């Protein structure tokens, strides 16, 4: 049984799409979940469908959506690092590592969920995953939380092998879908296209339903 789960992702909605079911599972069983959200996704290009957000209103819109999504899946505390979308990889990695290390020492999580550096597609994902792993490796071996790393680049299976954690979340799919819906500005377009069956690749629809059935992680190996 975990004592405290720390989730570290750069954009509001990363927590939901990538591991909303897993988070809901922990929260339901009474484990406190804290989320370090590094940016407010200020530069997202999805603005709702029909669009209702502007480049300037988007951060406030997404902050409110995040609060609603967190309520749905049971995240109790959000720590906003106040970085700007798309800039994480250009910040001083030492300073970011220090900030995350400080939070780790305060919260003392038993499990951390973050992106697998190098296998998470978006540069912000890879950069934040990297400093998070770096911060955790500063802790003594006995103090280190287990890390479930989230990877979804096309080469992740080939290079990393099959994920060792495959989590059945079908019982939590309603909560995850509620959180996806809460991120309106980011999900309305996708949900509308799914409803109309407008995806060129058949695979997308099936990968969306897969999103509500199972979540996979690679336990990060520090040695």
């Amino acid at each position, binding site marked *: 049984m975990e004592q405290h789960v720390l989730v570290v992702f750069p954009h509001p909605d990363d927590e939901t799409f990538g591991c909303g079911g897993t988070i809901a599972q922990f929260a339901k069983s009474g484990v406190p979940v804290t989320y370090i959200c590094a940016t407010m996704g200020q*530069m997202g*290009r*999805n*603005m*709702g*469908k*029909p*669009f209702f957000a*502007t*480049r*300037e209103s988007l*951060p406030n819109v997404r902050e409110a959506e995040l609060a609603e999504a967190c309520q749905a899946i049971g995240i109790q505390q959000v720590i906003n690092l106040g970085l*700007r979308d*798309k800039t994480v990889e250009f910040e001083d990695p030492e300073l970011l590592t220090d900030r995350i290390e400080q939070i780790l020492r305060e919260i003392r999580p038993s499990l951390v969920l973050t992106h697998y550096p190098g296998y998470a*597609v*978006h*540069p912000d994902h890879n950069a934040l995953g990297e400093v998070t792993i770096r911060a955790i490796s500063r802790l003594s071996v006995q103090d280190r939380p287990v890390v479930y790393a989230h990877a979804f*680049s*096309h080469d992740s299976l080939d290079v990393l092998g099959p994920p060792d954690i495959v989590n059945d979340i079908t019982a939590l799919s309603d909560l995850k879908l509620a959180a996806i819906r809460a991120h309106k500005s980011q999900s309305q*377009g996708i949900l509308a*296209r799914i409803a109309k069956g407008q995806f060129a*690749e058949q695979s997308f629809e099936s990968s969306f339903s897969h999103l509500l059935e199972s979540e996979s992680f690679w336990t990060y190996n520090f040695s």
Partner: protein
Amino acid sequence: MNTINKSSVQSALDSFLNREVYLHLETTNGAYAVHTQQSNMSVGAYIRNGRISFGRGVITGDGPYRVGLKLELGWVYAEGLTDFEITPEGQLLLAGHDQEGRLAVALELSLSPFKL
């Protein structure tokens, strides 16, 4: 935002003439363009709070629209603009949205810095 009304946008551009203004300019095809196989490149660029001054600023086209701002030593240019808004703080927001409502280009002007 509303569909661009050319004369409203032209008046707004004129109100910024020869003043120190803050510029937000961006274009993007999305960070997942390669991953979702929509393109073989993810392309984007943005400037946040560039300080400029322009002596001539014009909106042209029949929609989507183009805007050019003539600076003392150069130009600011954007094409594909479809929608506009003038915020209560007097910022002029111009954006180009694709058929899915996703932002593809934006050009914004403000007399005070945009929020970071």
